[in-house]
């Protein structure tokens, strides 16, 4: 068997390991092993890459310089990556994932750029006419373009999630659709030009620049609550960029791994959109309509009942079943450990405590699960929406912490509401609802929430973490 056959066999094994890794991701216990197998597959593929013919030829003709370069670069990257991953706080996971994702996209762009540069340089040196590589040209162009969109889109998503001051406000210039259309047309023209003239490094980098601008203009207008969709979509793009890079260098492990990631990102994107009852196009280009169906003053006037920690503690004392509904506010207030303390205090009194997790609560898919798991809350208690909704009528107290739109009953009752039809957690059906919130300010959708004015709702105006700590203390005294 030739050495290339062995290398290809290693790539095949790596691909199989990736598929098994995804397969094991279906359960929390097997997922750890899945992650290890994924890493093993990656190590195998990287080792095989070091034995590829161009690398070995270089080794034979000019010494170990090439492999040393690779080793130095890989060591730098691995140390930086591992440090980031170990240091970043759990509340910042969405940013971290966005950032890592962007690096992957940028790497794909650079691979395509380097391949193109080398190929044209060699053709120029040998003054041989360039072969007609339409497939190579299209794949190179797409890799460069998708990679650039991924990098800049991820960077903007990171900046928004990290709440860097300049990125706080969503960019809502009404001309943005024309700008995007213009950039889209530029992209098509450059793609066509590059297809006709595949040895032009200039056209390639032009395409990368247009992709960079487009990555920014597409993600700048997207608001915080739509971030889960954007993260999934960018994740999918980084996979597709890697797959496209596989077409450039004719390598099946890149194509397989890239398309697995692409598929995973697309599925999650679809799940997130479904959970918000919105189309992908609506999320990317719409922005939510601000035409409020109901005026905030009409909804709230005279109907808001504010309660203190002591009053709420008294309600909790008599409860036999309590459901906690976390939202992004919980992550902002870093209240996950305080919530755990409250749940412990309640359970000591014999109260059943469960958690209702909306699919788009937080800023990335599954965000709340990770936060609560960090506070040692067993995952069996984290219930999904469809699973827990029928149990709200038998729930004594539902405690909503930092969630708003995902518990807004207007989605069910008011067909003119901008969020009409969005699946929500039916907390309003619980006997008593406690809403922990700093003020009556609207959520991301910018609409008032009739839940706050409902007869069975008590508003507890305070910062999420302090509120829960006070509540636990009051419960201890009661």
């Amino acid at each position, binding site marked *: 068997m030739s050495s290339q056959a062995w290398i290809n066999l290693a790539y095949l094994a790596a691909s199989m390991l990736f598929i098994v890794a995804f397969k094991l991701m279906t359960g929390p216990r097997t997922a750890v092993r899945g992650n290890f197998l994924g890493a093993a597959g990656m190590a195998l593929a990287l080792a095989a890459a070091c034995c590829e013919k161009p690398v070995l030829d270089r080794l034979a003709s000019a010494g170990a310089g090439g492999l040393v370069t690779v080793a130095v670069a890989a060591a730098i990257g691995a140390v930086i990556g591992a440090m980031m991953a170990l240091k970043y706080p759990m509340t910042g996971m969405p940013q971290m994932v966005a950032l890592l994702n962007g690096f992957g996209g940028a790497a794909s762009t650079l691979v395509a750029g380097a391949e193109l540069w080398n190929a044209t*340089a060699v053709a120029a040196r040998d003054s041989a006419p360039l072969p007609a590589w339409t*497939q190579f040209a299209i794949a190179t162009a797409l890799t460069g373009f998708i990679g650039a969109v991924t990098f800049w889109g991820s960077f903007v998503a990171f900046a928004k999630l990290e709440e860097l001051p300049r990125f706080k406000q969503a960019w809502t210039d009404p001309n943005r659709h024309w700008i995007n259309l213009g950039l889209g047309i530029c992209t098509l023209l450059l793609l066509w030009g590059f297809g006709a003239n595949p040895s032009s490094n200039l056209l390639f980098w032009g395409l990368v620049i247009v992709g960079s601008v487009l990555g920014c203009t597409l993600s700048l207008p997207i608001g915080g609550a739509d971030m889960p969709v954007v993260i999934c979509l960018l994740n999918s793009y980084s996979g597709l960029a890697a797959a496209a890079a596989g077409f450039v260098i004719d390598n099946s492990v890149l194509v397989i791994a890239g398309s697995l990631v692409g598929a995973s*990102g697309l599925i999650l994107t679809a799940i997130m959109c479904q959970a918000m009852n919105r189309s992908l196009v609506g999320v990317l280009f719409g922005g939510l309509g601000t035409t409020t169906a109901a005026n905030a003053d009409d909804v709230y006037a005279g109907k808001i009942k504010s309660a203190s920690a002591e009053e709420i503690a008294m309600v909790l004392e008599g409860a036999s079943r309590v459901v906690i509904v976390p939202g992004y506010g919980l992550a902002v207030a870093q209240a996950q450990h305080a919530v755990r303390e409250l749940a412990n205090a309640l359970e000591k009194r014999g109260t059943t405590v469960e958690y209702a997790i909306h699919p788009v609560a937080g800023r990335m898919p599954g965000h709340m699960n990770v936060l609560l798991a960090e506070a040692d809350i067993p995952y069996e208690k984290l219930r999904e929406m469809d699973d827990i909704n029928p149990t709200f009528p038998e729930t004594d107290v539902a405690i909503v912490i930092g969630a708003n739109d995902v518990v807004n009953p207007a989605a069910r009752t008011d067909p003119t509401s901008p969020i009409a039809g969005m699946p929500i957690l039916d907390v309003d059906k619980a006997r008593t609802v406690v809403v922990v919130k700093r003020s009556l300010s609207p959520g991301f959708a910018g609409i008032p929430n009739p839940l706050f004015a409902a007869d069975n709702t008590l508003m507890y105006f305070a910062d999420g973490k302090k509120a829960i700590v006070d509540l636990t203390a009051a419960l201890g005294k009661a």
Partner: protein
Amino acid sequence: MTLPCPLLPIASAASFEDPAATFIRLLTVFLLAMWVGFEVITKVPQRLHTPLTSGSNAISGITAVGAIVVAGALATRVGSVLGFLAVVLAMVNVAGGFVVTHRMLEMFQPKKK
């Protein structure tokens, strides 16, 4: 028969393959892998969506394979610099992705205390 480009790491057996045939071969792999991906990933429960995102993110760092081949060949100066940067970035993605996924999955484990 088309000229094989000397620097593209085309498998020796496939060197004389018509570019269109290469494209179709890779397209076949691409579509089948997409299919497998859809089948496997729809079964991942919602509570594991964050580790799934970061784990798949790490796997998208597979582009490091391409980066290593480019950087290790040191064919041209510009190509080598780009390749070097690509290896660094891809490895940040790979190492960061797997480590962070492991950190998250550890939290999902029942505590032994």
